[in-house]
């Protein structure tokens, strides 16, 4: 084993230890301690991840097997970690951003009682642990373990404030919707195991590349597997049709939202598909489906975000939309672009959420942007960082968002011009609603209550420092993937990921690239201007027509409720009220009742009269004799 990889097992282990300490010792630990443990463990794994990242950058990478999780005849599933470019990159994202969020949380959650404070950090650590497991796993089963783990942690954290049944309801929704995806994912894993006899990435990919199209692994198999995996991904990464849990996941504390949206959870789907890129490259049909679904999600979410007033909801839908972009990239075969966007998005989305958290914190829990405005004066750092975040997500050069989004748009263009058009429009929408948010929150005049105004204050350092760091990253994060057209062989990320995801060498003239870039940048600038014109001063407007439709989120939740949830429970009631007692059980009891009844009736044969007895006997005898002598003869 590579000497530098010997510590790999510590990366997930440290958060787990943190979880155990905080979880078991929650009644005894002081807030400082649990905060320290929570953040410290993550910091530890971040450092180790850095070492490993260095080693990987030096061209190393391998699969470290610890013990056999399942070993039986015809199937061996080791509990093993795979360390390569992709996983090491994600390790950095998860631990790095995770650490910042932990630090931020220490101050954000300070009002909680020490017990629930420790509980909170134990959950956070468990969350990070599961995500790390997911990323490190060298086969689909370990990946699935982490996959379910993040589902569980999201459930625990969304429902963190267990007093509020609305929140716990949202938590249940998140878990169950994830389970729907998980089922598809599981079926895909089973299919792979049955066909290839293994679940390890390397073996599966080798097998498929060897036998693709043959009876061993036909094209149908490939399509089925890839589709099932994708359905799994839609659950975790909040794509159509399983995205509705993510906006509701706002119920959790704001740092948790940051964690879910930026570092962990939602990126799992992207990771999984990127990890399986070898299979996907063989399934063009699936790829186009993915790209269309991603695009549709991006557009739908963007439109919804246009008319949301809850600051976190806007961000949530923007996440869904950005994830849509990533899937678009995956669908167009630009895996690197997708991962690139995951990276940059992690930076600025974490930034935005933590910023919004800072705002909410300052507003004393108020989340409705209609009651905000003009905060730029009081919350200077927050404003500055938030602005950077908006610029980044809008995709203005030279901020990180620009490069990743540009890569995606380019790939879409090459793959399917129509998609490019829609994607570009969606990008404008993004810029529009983000700056709407910015203006409504920080510009104009304050619209909250006086005491809120009195309460307004910049957040403490523990919260602002992470903001600043993230802001820096959001600015500079994109420079690791500068396309050739701007700067010759500066696409460091592409070269770094090429061994895993394959290099994307697309033949397109620099002129076109310049054209596309200028198109998007110009459009974004115009949109921002338009937004400034509209929302510089807030006017309460009754949304009408299509906008009302957007405000109500396309009525998707209501649709699901009517079409799926209600029928299921109605059917359940029918089964309980009717089928079970009146049909199945009635049949069973009916037998017993029949016996009773028969007994009651047959008794009367025993009339008590000698005459009737003799008569019956004689009749019986006569019948027997007649039958014997005249029929059976």
């Amino acid at each position, binding site marked *: 084993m590579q000497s530098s990889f010997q510590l790999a097992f510590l990366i997930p282990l440290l958060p787990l230890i943190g979880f155990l300490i905080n979880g078991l010792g929650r009644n005894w630990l002081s807030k400082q301690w649990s905060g320290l443990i929570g953040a410290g463990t993550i910091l530890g794994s971040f450092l180790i991840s850095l070492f490993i990242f260095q080693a990987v950058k030096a061209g190393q990478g391998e699969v470290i097997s610890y013990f056999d999780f399942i070993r039986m005849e015809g199937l061996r599933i080791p509990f093993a970690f795979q360390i390569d470019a992709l996983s090491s990159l994600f390790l950095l994202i998860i631990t790095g951003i995770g650490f910042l969020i932990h630090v931020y949380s220490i101050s954000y959650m300070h009002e909680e009682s020490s017990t629930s404070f420790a509980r909170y950090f134990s959950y956070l650590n468990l969350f990070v642990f599961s995500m790390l497991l997911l990323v490190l796993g060298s086969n689909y089963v370990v990946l699935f373990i982490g996959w379910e783990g993040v589902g569980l942690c999201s459930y625990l954290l969304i429902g963190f404030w267990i007093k509020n049944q609305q929140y716990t309801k949202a938590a249940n929704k998140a878990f169950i919707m994830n389970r729907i995806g998980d089922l598809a994912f599981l079926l895909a894993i089973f299919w792979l195991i049955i066909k290839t006899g293994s679940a390890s990435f390397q073996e599966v990919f080798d097998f498929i590349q060897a036998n693709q199209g043959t009876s061993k692994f036909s094209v149908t198999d490939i399509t089925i597997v890839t589709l099932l995996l994708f359905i799994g991904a839609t659950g975790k990464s909040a794509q159509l049709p399983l995205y509705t849990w993510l906006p509701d996941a706002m119920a959790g504390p704001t740092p948790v939202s940051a964690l879910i949206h930026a570092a962990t959870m939602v990126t799992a789907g992207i990771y999984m598909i990127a990890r399986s890129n070898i299979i996907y490259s063989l399934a063009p049909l699936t790829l186009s489906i993915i790209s269309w679904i991603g695009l549709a999600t991006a557009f739908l979410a963007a439109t919804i975000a246009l008319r949301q007033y809850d600051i976190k909801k806007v961000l949530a839908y923007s996440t869904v939309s950005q994830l849509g972009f990533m899937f678009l990239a995956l669908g167009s075969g630009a895996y690197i672009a997708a991962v690139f966007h995951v990276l940059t998005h992690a930076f600025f989305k974490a930034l935005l959420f933590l910023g919004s958290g800072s705002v909410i914190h300052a507003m004393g829990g108020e989340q409705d942007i209609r009651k905000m405005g003009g905060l730029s004066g009081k919350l200077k750092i927050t404003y500055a960082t938030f602005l950077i975040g908006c610029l980044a997500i809008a995709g203005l050069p030279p901020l990180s968002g620009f490069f990743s989004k540009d890569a995606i748009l380019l790939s879409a263009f090459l793959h399917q011009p129509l998609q490019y058009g829609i994607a570009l429009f969606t990008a404008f929408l993004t810029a529009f609603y983000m700056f709407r948010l910015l203006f409504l929150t920080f510009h104009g005049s304050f619209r909250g209550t006086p005491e809120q105004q009195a309460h307004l204050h910049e957040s403490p350092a523990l919260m602002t420092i992470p903001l600043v760091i993230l802001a820096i990253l959001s600015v500079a994060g994109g420079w690791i993937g500068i396309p050739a057209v701007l700067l010759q062989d500066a696409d460091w990320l592409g070269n770094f990921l090429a061994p895993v995801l394959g290099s994307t060498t697309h033949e397109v003239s620099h002129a076109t690239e310049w054209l596309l870039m200028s198109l998007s940048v110009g459009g974004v600038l115009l949109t921002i201007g338009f937004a400034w014109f509209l929302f510089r001063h807030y006017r309460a407007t009754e949304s009408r027509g299509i906008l009302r439709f957007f405000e109500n989120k396309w009525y998707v939740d209501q649709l699901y409720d009517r079409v799926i949830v209600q029928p299921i429970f109605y059917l359940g009631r029918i089964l309980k009220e009717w089928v079970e007692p009146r049909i199945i059980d009635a049949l069973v009891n009916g037998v017993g009742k029949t016996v009773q009844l028969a007994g009651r009736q047959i008794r009367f044969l025993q009339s008590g009269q*000698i005459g009737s007895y003799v008569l019956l006997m004689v009749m019986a005898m006569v019948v027997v004799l007649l039958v014997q002598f005249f029929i059976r003869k």
Partner: protein
Amino acid sequence: MPINYYLFLAIALFSIGVVGVLTRRNAIIIFMCIELMLNAVNLLLVAFSKMHYNQAAAAAIPIANPGIDGQLFVFFIMVVAAAEVSVGLAIIVMLYRNIHSVDINFLNRLKH
């Protein structure tokens, strides 16, 4: 005289007895009908015994007095019948003491 005549006669007597049992309500008369059935059997047995004697004689089968056991049986039946009569009449009398009737239709405390 062929055996069938005896056979039919005996069966007729027996059937009369059965019909009597079926139709009459007086315990004593029912009992008499049963006796009639028994006597029908006696008649039949005697007839058969004679028949077997003739067959044996015709076939010259060297058995000591063939067919004798049939007649022996008859005596046993008479003895047993006598015993039954004594017990049966005792029972009927006992019943008469209690309900002052020998009509079997009054006997329906035990039913269902």
